[in-house]
């Protein structure tokens, strides 16, 4: 069941610098993947909903989500994704500068798969991004629901 978007990473990030550094890190890390970059939470939900309506297999393989986002913030997007039976199995990685206990606790209670603090130091930052990408794209096996499962 190799789908078209088996390698798709959806990056929801409003900071253009962070986005560019993430893209650069993935390129340097030589990960085979397609990266879709969106800048706010509402855009991200529209994108997911269109894919969801069209074909399940075209949903992204993993979603990387910033917390501070325009319109819908990261936690709101996470809540929507995890409360929909068709999207709740997509791994969601929160990538943020917030070390707040309350943010971390809320993200986990909403079902986040991973919560990662953006390192300031650039080597650490690119290593973190690449490690995360290869973990969720290559190493981790995710359950994918099919029509019959519902």
């Amino acid at each position, binding site marked *: 069941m190799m789908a078209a978007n088996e390698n798709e990473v959806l990056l929801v990030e409003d900071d253009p*610098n962070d986005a560019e*550094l993430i893209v650069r890190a993935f390129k340097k890390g030589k990960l085979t993947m397609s990266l879709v970059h969106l800048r706010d939470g509402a855009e991200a939900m529209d994108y997911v909903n269109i894919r969801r309506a069209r074909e399940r297999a075209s949903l992204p393989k993993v979603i990387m989500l910033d917390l*501070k986002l325009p319109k819908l913030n990261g936690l709101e997007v996470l809540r929507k994704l995890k409360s929909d039976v068709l999207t709740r199995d997509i791994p969601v990685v929160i990538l943020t*500068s917030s*070390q*707040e206990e309350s943010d971390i606790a809320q993200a986990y209670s909403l079902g986040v798969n991973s919560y990662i603090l953006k390192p*300031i130091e*650039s*080597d650490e*930052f690119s290593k973190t991004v690449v490690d995360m990408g290869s973990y969720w794209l290559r190493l981790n096996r995710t359950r994918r629901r099919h029509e019959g499962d519902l």
Partner: protein
Amino acid sequence: MTSREALAAYEMIQLQERLDLLRREHLGALRALERIRLERGELRQVNMATMNILEDLEEEKRRSLDAQSALLNMLEDIEEERREGERTKAVLEAVNRELEAFSYTVSHDLRAPLRAISGFSRAIAEDCADSLNDEGKRYLELIQENVNRMGALIDGLLAFSRLGRQRMNTSDVDMGAMFDEVFQEIMAQEPERDVKLIRNPMPLLNGDAVMLRQVAVNLLSNAVKFTRGRERAVIEVGYAADVEGGAYYVRDNGAGFDMKYADKLFGVFERLHPSEDYEGSGVGLALVERIVVRHGGRVWATSVPGEGSTFFFTALGGRST
């Protein structure tokens, strides 16, 4: 005696008796009159006493009314003060919340441009390595170093602002064991250093273990840092029962500081040594003070420059807020 005479005598006796009776009766009346006179006098006295009492009562009543209105005024004042206090408290709480939100936002929003500076200067170093001379490469290294320093400052600020909001979980903490543990951890980071730890006995401390650990980390890492120039670095931890009703202390034979600047020691971002000599964000001791104050205690230090310093802290036990 003739019968006439006998009758007269009889009547005489009768008269006598009646006279006696009358006299007795009269006497009763006289006595009664006398009694009435006396009683009237008493009554007058009683009356006067009653008047006096009534006057006293009236006076008392006036006084108690005065006292009552004074009390009411006092209660009003107290109520006013309470309202004033509540207003002040609400203002203070709002200011505090604002400050915390401010430093939270600042800390977060300062991180993003730093990541960009770090990331893109690294990108230049990697992508344009061929067109950079050694000086250019060194400048990029300096940018990186400064980014890291700024990062440490932001982390310190964040930790400092978070502390104010953190709830305290109190338990009896074995400070001696904690000092031991923290010391081992610090030394594991600096394998080339040879520092001796003398651990004297000390009592348990009722407080928040996570926060108290931060105190141990900051005081011990300072002691390790400032004994760097010593051939035989010695750090001593213990408890001085005779100091301010009992104080924990961390003593070192390091660089020390000039007591003239002792009051600056615990200020945020204050430093008594140039950062080139001793690195650090300048937040560590400010954090220590904030934690100790939350534990109802005080922290201070004594030092002789060139001979070492001793940091003392007391704690009345954690307030479970």
